[in-house]
């Protein structure tokens, strides 16, 4: 069927859609844009259904066909509610809610009849934009949602132009201008609106799907992180920074081994017998600030070793006996804290203590060959002073020279992971090495434990921040040596010195596509680009995502408040609103008086004449006023010629082309001056 408005000749291929169809298609496109980032988090059926609803609606709009009946839609809605219930086992909660709203929005587009329906679509879309932020608040997401907001506002503005077929670009410009004027209001509210605690607690599903360190280490965990290029934390050093090889960020310490996985120590000893941290810093400390991405774990990553509490608002911070800093609740948002660390330090008891036996436990029935080997080594070394240190050296030498390889793909390990590592495969990632190393050391009767965290980082030349990515997750060992206390030993550095020294990273082999994409690109250029992107992302984190109540109160302190609280924030907000309203009122006043000076003068003259009983019609141009004047005063009136002359000059100033060189306002000023001296009729 050919539509009558389809005027497609060979030289104008563009199809002239009717306004309704065009507006609907535009709106569908914007909705698709809002929904697209959600697809990864939605059940498959939901994405497919929403997509087909939108496509079907677009088809109807393109061919200007009627919408499906309400009963049909209701049927689909009931089905989708059932499907949601089936997918999420509930209709409440975040994920189920988002699924439902997506379905509702998609179905609502099939029910766009009245303007009310359009508004429902708009408001659902605004809400869905927010739900995107559950999953990502990155700069990229922000940019995409800004585009979506502009699209929605454009559609909204367009809806309210009832006449003709207004160009979308014009509506977009209006929407853009309005949003631009809205930015100061947004900034004010963003800065001053008190950041409250969650109204009913952070929902438990708020953090799902985030990667990072884990509270237990199973062989293979960290290897999966190694390919995760997202940023874990950002560090800025104030003053001197430590050696690159000292950049060990301490995370969970894992001391219990059940044969398969390492977990935190569950000591059976009473607390007074457990080994205290007993940290002693040496030399000069380094000062730095850490911005930590939300991990949903109560860990503060700090450099080894930090004796003083890191400064962090809103959380209770304490140190475990294993030197790890933890908070009282999981970190659900971006946090920033300052800390002071000693790159040179000792900790733990210097002489053997009762509690140290916790770090000797090994499950029976695992790794028999390693145990056997440990016994041999032990016997060779003897029992003398410094035997432990010597044994550690021996093993590190063995790692260095024994043909061990650092690799991301060591293959699957079986039940006796340490045996396989030491004798069969000789391949491993840091977790294999740390785990096997600690098992061996413990089997020799020396207390040892696994420490996980991040090692290394890369300085962004653009903004000077050190970026630590998830791929820098690392596991190393700590061995207790008599007279030295706990000592860090990194078996990985023995196998692959570059891993800890110059931060060389294992890279997955680039496939054909990767080579095709990157091979031709100037890698330095690409690296620079990435540095800028990271810097932009980092400022985004620093200024926007990390803007917390602490930052707000600090701002108030800078404004001169002593020990401000959130009530002060309200006061400042109210004050700002009052000032803004006053400003607006003043502007309105100014605007009223600041009118076209020409018109203003004419109006004054008309008003003056009306007061003397001369009937001057409103909106008369000066020449007409003059005519009315002469008509009513009579041509013989003594003042009439002067008044007429004045009015005609006024007209000339308004309409005569400006004379080159003469200031256009000059004549007007003269007219204004002579206004009072004119022979006004009484």
């Amino acid at each position: 069927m050919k539509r009558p408005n389809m005027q497609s000749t060979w030289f104008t291929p563009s199809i002239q859609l009717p306004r309704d169809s065009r507006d609907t298609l535009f709106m569908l496109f914007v909705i698709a844009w809002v929904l697209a980032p959600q697809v990864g988090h939605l059940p498959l059926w939901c994405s497919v259904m929403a997509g087909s609803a939108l496509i079907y609606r677009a088809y109807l709009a393109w061919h200007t066909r009627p919408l499906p009946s309400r009963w049909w839609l209701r049927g689909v809605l009931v089905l989708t509610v059932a499907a949601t219930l089936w997918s999420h086992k509930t209709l409440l909660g975040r994920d189920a809610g988002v699924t439902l709203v997506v379905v509702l929005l998609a179905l609502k587009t099939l029910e766009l009849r009245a303007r009310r329906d359009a508004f429902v679509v708009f408001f659902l879309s605004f809400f869905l934009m927010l739900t995107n932020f559950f999953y990502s608040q990155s700069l990229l997401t922000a940019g995409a949602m800004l585009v979506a907001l502009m699209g929605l506002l454009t559609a909204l503005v367009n809806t309210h132009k009832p006449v003709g077929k207004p160009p979308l670009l014009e509506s977009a410009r209006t929407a853009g201008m309005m949003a631009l004027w809205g930015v100061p209001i947004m900034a004010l509210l963003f800065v001053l609106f008190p950041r409250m605690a969650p109204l009913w607690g952070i929902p438990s599903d708020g953090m799902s799907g985030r990667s990072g360190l884990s509270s237990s280490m199973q062989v293979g965990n960290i290897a999966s992180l190694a390919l995760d290029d997202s940023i874990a934390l950002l560090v800025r050093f104030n003053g001197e920074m430590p050696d690159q090889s000292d950049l060990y960020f301490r995370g969970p310490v894992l001391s219990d081994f059940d044969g398969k996985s390492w977990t935190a120590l569950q000591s059976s000893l009473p607390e007074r017998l457990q080994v205290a941290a007993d940290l002693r810093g040496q030399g000069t400390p380094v000062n730095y600030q850490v911005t930590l991405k939300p991990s949903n774990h109560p860990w503060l990553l700090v450099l080894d070793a930090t004796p003083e509490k890191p400064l962090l608002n809103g959380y209770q911070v304490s140190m475990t006996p294993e030197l790890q800093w933890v908070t009282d609740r999981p970190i659900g948002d971006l946090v920033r804290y300052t800390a002071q660390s000693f790159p040179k330090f000792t900790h733990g008891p210097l002489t053997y203590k009762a509690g140290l036996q916790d770090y000797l436990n090994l499950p029976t029935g695992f790794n028999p060959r390693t145990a056997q080997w440990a016994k041999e080594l032990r016997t060779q070394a003897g029992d003398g002073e410094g035997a432990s240190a010597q044994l550690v050296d021996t093993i590190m030498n063995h790692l260095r020279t024994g043909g061990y390889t650092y690799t991301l793909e060591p293959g699957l390990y079986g039940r006796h992971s340490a045996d396989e590592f030491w004798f069969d495969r000789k391949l491993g990632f840091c977790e294999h090495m740390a785990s096997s190393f600690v098992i061996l050391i413990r089997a020799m009767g020396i207390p040892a434990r696994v420490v996980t965290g991040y090692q290394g980082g890369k300085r962004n030349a653009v903004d000077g921040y050190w970026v630590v990515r998830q791929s820098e997750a690392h596991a190393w060992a700590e061995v207790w040596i008599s007279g030295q206390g706990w000592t860090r030993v990194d078996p990985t550095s023995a196998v692959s010195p570059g891993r800890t020294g110059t931060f060389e990273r294992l890279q997955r082999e680039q496939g054909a596509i990767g080579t095709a994409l990157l091979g031709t690109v100037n890698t330095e250029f690409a690296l620079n680009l990435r540095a800028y992107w990271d810097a932009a992302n980092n400022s985004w984190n620093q200024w926007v995502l990390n803007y917390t109540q602490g930052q707000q109160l600090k701002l108030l302190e800078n404004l001169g408040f002593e020990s401000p609280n959130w009530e002060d924030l309200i006061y400042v907000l109210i004050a700002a609103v009052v000032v803004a309203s006053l400003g607006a009122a003043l502007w309105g006043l100014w605007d009223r008086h600041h009118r076209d000076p020409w018109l203003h003068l004419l109006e004054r003259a008309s008003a003056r004449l009306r007061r003397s009983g001369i009937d001057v019609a409103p909106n008369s141009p000066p020449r007409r006023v003059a005519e009315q004047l002469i008509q009513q005063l009579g041509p013989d009136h003594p003042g009439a010629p002067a008044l007429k002359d004045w009015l005609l000059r006024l007209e000339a100033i308004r309409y005569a082309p400006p004379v080159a060189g003469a200031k256009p306002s000059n004549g007007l000023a003269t007219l204004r001056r002579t206004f009072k001296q004119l022979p006004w009729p009484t």
Partner: protein
Amino acid sequence: MSNATTGEPDRGRFWRHPIRRLQRRFRQWFESRLPLTDSVTLTQRSVYILPTGPGLMLGATLLLLLVASINYQLNLGYMLTFLLAGTAMVGMLVCHGTLRGVSLHLALPSPVFAGTSALMEVQLQSQRRSTRHGIGLAVMGSGHWAWCNVPAQGVCTLQVAFQPARRGLHRVPTLTAETRYPLGTFRVWTVWRPAAQVLVYPTPEVSAPPLPLASAHAGDGPATQSSVAGDFDGVRAYRRGDPLKMVVWKKLAKADELVSRDSVHALGVELWLDQRETGLSHPERQLSRLCAWVLQADRLALDYGLRLAGLDIPPASGEAQKKRCLQALALNR
């Protein structure tokens, strides 16, 4: 003034409904305060603003977004919420500015017959340097909106119609202009009482009886046939409005002056449309019939006079006569 001109029928049950009654009272009181003027420039004082239903819905959405941002600690959510709120606030100002500063001028409406629609032509004028979008105009309470965009420093013309219920001279109904541009979250409107009055003629009777020629004076009727050729008594100077077929063209050719046949003499009758001779008793229906007759006589280009109680309009023909007669009929008490 009665409310009949607003086109809203008086219903008895309105008066029993206390809220409706109060609303009506309020509207009457409100409108009575407005000045009567045919030209008005809208200012801060004459422009009103209130959120619309969707506006309140947007408010609820913003609250929901805010709660979600607080609960999930989403700084980006705060930004979205506040940017949307800021834009809506700016939208409010833009909406107000769209109507503020517009000048409205009403052209004098032409007379109409009762029962037909009177057109009011309103000029909307803008001094602003940008287009004002989506301004609607309607007779207050009618719900029939006419929309236009007022171009930058330009004028647009809108027509709204209303149906006067009765003959006579009526003030045109109260008008209202509104805009919801740009976001539809606010309604900005004004109420305007033009001073202009519209003259409403009686409804011409449908299929009225033929003109009462029989009852004409000097009733010899067809005797006039004799006086057709060369009867120069029946000639007078041309008057504006004389039908062309009455012009003596021969005379024009000879003497270079326009001369009309004196139709009264030519026909030998005087056509008087007399209220008492309509054969009807109801005064309004009498007027209706007279109205129909006036139109008929005018169409036939006859000379006719109108005789109402206490008013005689001497016979004549032409547009002026028609107007005079219709006006007399409209204003007859």
